[in-house]
């Protein structure tokens, strides 16, 4: 998407503002942030982070090189590499959030070693380039100016640690909690959730229970308290100790659901039947000349087709509603690649909405980028039968994505569709027929490819949006 203007989510830190101009991403800095950037550039850890791809590609540019019409007046401006597709922590799987948390702590530890700290500890400051987590909030770094504990500790707990504890200790998926609370879970909420003996689970007593008790009893000004603690001897070594303890805790956290999903994934991943071969060939033929820069695989399941599309070089966003399935896909990508697939957890019947201040701070899923290619394989029957979305609306939603569509229609007599229909009253989905689907598709797309798979119950289409 070739947007211009100030990033709606970039307003909390008055010292640095992200904006877009001419399809490029910039960060305008005030005097303080500019001095911080100069200090950061002189460190040895920051260039190493850039070289390893752990921080977003960043360079200083001359103010005179800014494209015309760029907003604001700044002391200095940085340019960042574009993130292929922006995602949010409430769309990540357990292992993704865990890896993002560990990256954040590794970066903070490296920074503290050179007397630099981070202003916050926010999960939204990590993005993904394919399967790799990347720290993006370069404005977060500042030289250590006083003693006292890390000011981002609370935010780190709320948006990283607490969601991970929910899943690891209680098997509760955290995504819906983070979607509902962009600032994360409060210590007092967590204390109620981890009541009784649950408070003695690993990491809970120290980071949840004592945190909540301290929050309810200590009410004086935080800035003066931080300074006073610095004077009492709380220096960077103790902050480093906090970071190391958090890192050790999070590195050991595991999700039982994730572990069993990963075991299942490795046992059941199979690509062998005849339908699969024909489907593979159909998709390859359709994508061969397309060279999509951004593809969405909606309802990606084990990610087999996302992998196939990734082979053509662009970025692929692989979406599924089952967080355990997405977690297994992420683990397989982390182990073997490829690097250009971003797996996300999302229910397509209830996709991520616009959230935050003015409903603009975090964008809706479909408002972040326009894909070149959409795969909807074995998805339509789930939307139309399991979720009761009228077939006409399914097709018009596909059209709204404004991309070349490869879609699979699963007929009523297919065992998977029959199973879903078996849960519904007889006659409720009489209009779920291939002729009705084909007519609806033809009204909004030019159908440039069609093939029934050998099993006789599934038909593939390539459809190009009508202008």
């Amino acid at each position: 998407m070739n947007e211009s203007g100030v990033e709606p989510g970039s307003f909390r830190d008055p010292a640095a503002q992200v904006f877009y101009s001419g399809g490029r991403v910039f960060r305008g800095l005030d005097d303080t942030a500019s001095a911080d950037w100069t200090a950061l550039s002189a460190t040895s850890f920051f260039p190493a982070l850039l070289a390893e791809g752990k921080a977003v590609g960043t360079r200083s540019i001359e103010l005179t090189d800014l494209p015309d019409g760029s907003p604001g007046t700044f002391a200095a401006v940085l340019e960042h590499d574009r993130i292929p597709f922006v995602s949010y922590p409430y769309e990540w799987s357990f292992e993704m959030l865990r890896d993002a948390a560990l990256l954040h702590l590794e970066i903070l530890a490296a920074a503290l070693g050179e007397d630099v700290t981070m202003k916050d500890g926010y999960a939204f400051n990590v993005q993904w380039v394919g399967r790799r987590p990347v720290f993006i909030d370069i404005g977060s770094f500042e030289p250590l100016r006083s003693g006292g504990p890390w000011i981002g500790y609370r935010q780190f707990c709320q948006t990283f640690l607490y969601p991970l504890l929910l899943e690891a200790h209680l098997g509760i998926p955290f995504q819906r909690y983070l979607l509902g609370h962009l600032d994360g879970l409060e210590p007092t909420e967590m204390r109620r959730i981890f009541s009784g003996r649950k408070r003695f689970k690993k990491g809970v007593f120290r980071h949840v229970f004592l945190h909540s008790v301290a929050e309810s009893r200590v009410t004086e000004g935080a800035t003066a308290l931080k300074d006073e603690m610095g004077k009492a001897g709380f220096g960077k070594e103790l902050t480093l100790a906090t970071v190391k303890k958090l890192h050790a805790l999070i590195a050991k956290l595991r999700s039982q659901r994730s572990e069993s999903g990963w075991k299942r994934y490795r046992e059941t991943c199979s690509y062998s039947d005849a339908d699969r071969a024909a489907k593979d060939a159909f998709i390859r033929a359709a994508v061969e000349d397309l060279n999509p820069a951004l593809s969405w695989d909606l309802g990606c399941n084990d990610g087999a087709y996302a992998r196939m599309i990734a082979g053509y070089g662009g970025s692929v966003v692989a979406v599924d509603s089952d967080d355990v399935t997405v977690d297994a896909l992420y683990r397989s990508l982390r182990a073997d690649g490829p690097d250009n697939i971003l797996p996300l957890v999302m229910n397509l019947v209830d996709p991520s909405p616009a959230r935050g201040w003015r409903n603009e701070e975090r964008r809706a899923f479909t408002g972040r980028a326009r894909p070149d290619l959409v795969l909807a394989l074995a998805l339509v029957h789930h939307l139309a039968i399991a979720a009761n979305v009228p077939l006409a609306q399914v097709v018009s939603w596909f059209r709204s994505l404004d991309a070349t569509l490869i879609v699979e229609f699963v007929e009523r007599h297919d065992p998977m569709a029959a199973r879903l229909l078996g849960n519904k009253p007889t006659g409720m989905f009489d209009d779920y027929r291939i002729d009705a689907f084909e007519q609806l598709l033809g009204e909004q797309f030019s159908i440039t490819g069609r093939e029934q798979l050998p099993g006789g119950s599934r038909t593939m289409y390539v459809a190009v949006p009508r202008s």
Partner: protein
Amino acid sequence: MRVVAYLDGNSGSMIAGAIAAGFAGIAVVTKMYWRRFLGLFSSKVRDQGEAAPEDAA
């Protein structure tokens, strides 16, 4: 005015963050409150404590 941090750290979280550092962090918190306690009885310590926020500004 120099903006040092835009985030409200929350005073309770400051204490919790110190405790999270382990025994050494707990020792610092104890020392801070001990100094405050002594400050109740000593005008010298109390004066130092009152001067601390100004020193930081």
